[in-house]
């Protein structure tokens, strides 16, 4: 069964450093997303990406965040200057939707980012 894969599974970084989280979405999917879940809180939407551009972003997704699809298979989330409060589980997801908006998103297993 096709799946969304994320690397690394765990990333520890020092405050102020840049990190890049990587994702390989399901190959025939057209929409790509990043969500995050701070420990003990709910899963929150960060950004959606379609047709090589951001289609929507949340208030969380400020100027320190960026996304890219550099080579047609990978989808990356960059955090330019990490803060302690960026520590969270980051989930990549993808969906088709094949003309129908209402299709489910498939999630990767997540990258646990720890900022120290």
């Amino acid at each position, binding site marked *: 069964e096709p799946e*969304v894969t*994320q690397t690394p599974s765990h990333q520890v970084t020092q405050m102020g450093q840049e990190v890049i989280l990587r994702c390989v979405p399901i190959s025939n999917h057209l*929409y790509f*997303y990043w*969500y995050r879940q701070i420990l003990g*809180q*709910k*899963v*929150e*939407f960060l950004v*959606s990406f*379609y047709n090589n551009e951001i*289609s*929507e972003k*949340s208030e969380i997704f400020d100027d320190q965040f960026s996304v890219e699809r550099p080579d047609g298979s990978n989808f990356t989330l960059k955090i330019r200057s990490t803060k302690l409060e960026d520590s969270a589980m980051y*989930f990549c*997801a993808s*969906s088709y*939707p094949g003309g129908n*908006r*209402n*299709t*489910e*998103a*498939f*999630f*990767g*297993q*997540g990258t646990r980012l720890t900022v120290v």
Partner: protein
Amino acid sequence: DQQVKQNSPSLSVQEGRISILNCDYTNSMFDYFLWYKKYPAEGPTFLISISSIKDKNEDGRFTVFLNKSAKHLSLHIVPSQPGDSAVYFCAASDAGGGNKLTFGTGTQLKVEL
């Protein structure tokens, strides 16, 4: 801004019995609802969904009910199995929000032998 609420943080049921997980929403623009299941250290896994034009959708042991007037949906699992023990998230999207999902806080289901 809790547009999607799951008021029960945990639920415990016996194996073989029915599990009922509840979800309320406040945004009347939501028109598509999904349930995801999540095990520790894994990503959410899609379970079942329902469009706002329906009031029920069934898939095997899982049934989702939608009451639009009450802005309430529920997930029924019958019969419950120990492998169903996980955190269940309700999520919703609206026509103006593209495919963005708004999640609830989750309910930890424990199915006991």
